[in-house]
């Protein structure tokens, strides 16, 4: 279960349970409810599921994961060299 897609918050309106954001997904804008991510602001990336943001993407963690993949790549290349 659970198609959730990362998108960038372009604007915010409302507050508390009716706090909404216009979120851009690769250029396509769709409104999402931000009630569950009160710490999220314009410019943040959030994961959106069924019209609700369920988390703010932790960009540091994302960078670390990608760094890990990059290192695995480099190690692999070293192994490949004759």
């Amino acid at each position: 279960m659970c198609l959730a897609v990362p998108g960038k918050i372009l604007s915010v309106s409302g507050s508390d349970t009716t706090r909404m954001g216009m979120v851009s997904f690769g250029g396509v804008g769709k409104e999402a409810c931000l009630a569950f991510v009160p710490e999220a602001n314009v410019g943040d990336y959030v994961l959106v599921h069924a019209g609700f943001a369920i988390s703010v993407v932790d960009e540091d963690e994302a960078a670390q994961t990608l760094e890990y993949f990059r290192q695995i790549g480099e190690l692999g290349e070293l192994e490949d060299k004759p």
Partner: protein
Amino acid sequence: MTKNVTFTGGCPVPLSNQDHVTLAHGGGGRMMHNLLERIVIPAFGNQPLESRHDGAVIKVGQGRLAFTTDSYVVHPLFFPGGDIGTLAVTGTVNDLAMCGARPLCLSAGFILEEGLPLATLERVVASMARTAKAANVNIVTGDTKVVDRGKGDGIYVNTAGIGVVEHDLVIAPTSVRPGDAILLSGDVGRHGVAIMAVREGLQFETTIETDCAPLAAPVLDLLAAGIEVHCLRDLTRGGLATTLIEIAESSRLHIGIGERDIAVEENVRGACEILGLDPLYLANEGRFVAFVPAAQAERALQILRAHPVAANATRIGTVSESPACLVTLQSRIGTRRILDMHSGEQLPRIC
């Protein structure tokens, strides 16, 4: 409307719901395919029909004519970049083009629902006139009927078209050969997303427009340049994947394509990600695939790219002998999978 269903909690074995038509039958997928194969084609049984191509090519005197028909039931009637009228003309013009014919003229049959505002009809007719002019065809005959309120969706349009075949090629899946290059005229998925985007409950802020466009000009140029076109097909319902599967099955050959070579516009991509849709199965109204001998692929692409509607034409794959009747997609991460038709129309998902 309907009577309330009595709640009996009946038979626990799931009954087949195949005794009447459902929306899935119109989706361009396996169910529609089966409907045609089981009920329609066997009843009419004749050679042009059995070639299962977009239009029929008939010998008339010394020459050949292409003949095709299509019905348009799109809802909503008006969507970004087009309306039922634009579709009704381009759809049929394109089917003629896919036979390698120069479109000559169209008929237009209207089924109007009681209560339809005349202003709506005027708008649709104006679209049709404009599109026909741009596609160099005339709408020369037609028919109009009115049905009771509630028995139609505003307007249904049927158009039939005839075109002249001015070459000697047999352009059909049966002409496809192992080694042929598969060319795609542009990015996919726009029309499908444009329609879904304006349906209730699935709106986006950003407007995605249909790719609806006439395709005769690039096709006729290919033919005029002497390209040995083996097969053409425009992508409509069921998308690129369904089109290729149909051709693979009709030609009894194997089609291999690469996901990375298939362009999807950024907005369309974003919409697909949100709704859980696969752009390979989404409708298009201004895109086609061409099967040409590998040696002519580069030249064919040059010719296509001279036309705005095919400016981003690319080669997406190659035909081979086996495994026969199948389409293999090489994914973005290099693995291969076999594409199958969806059973009905692709639906947005949450899972």
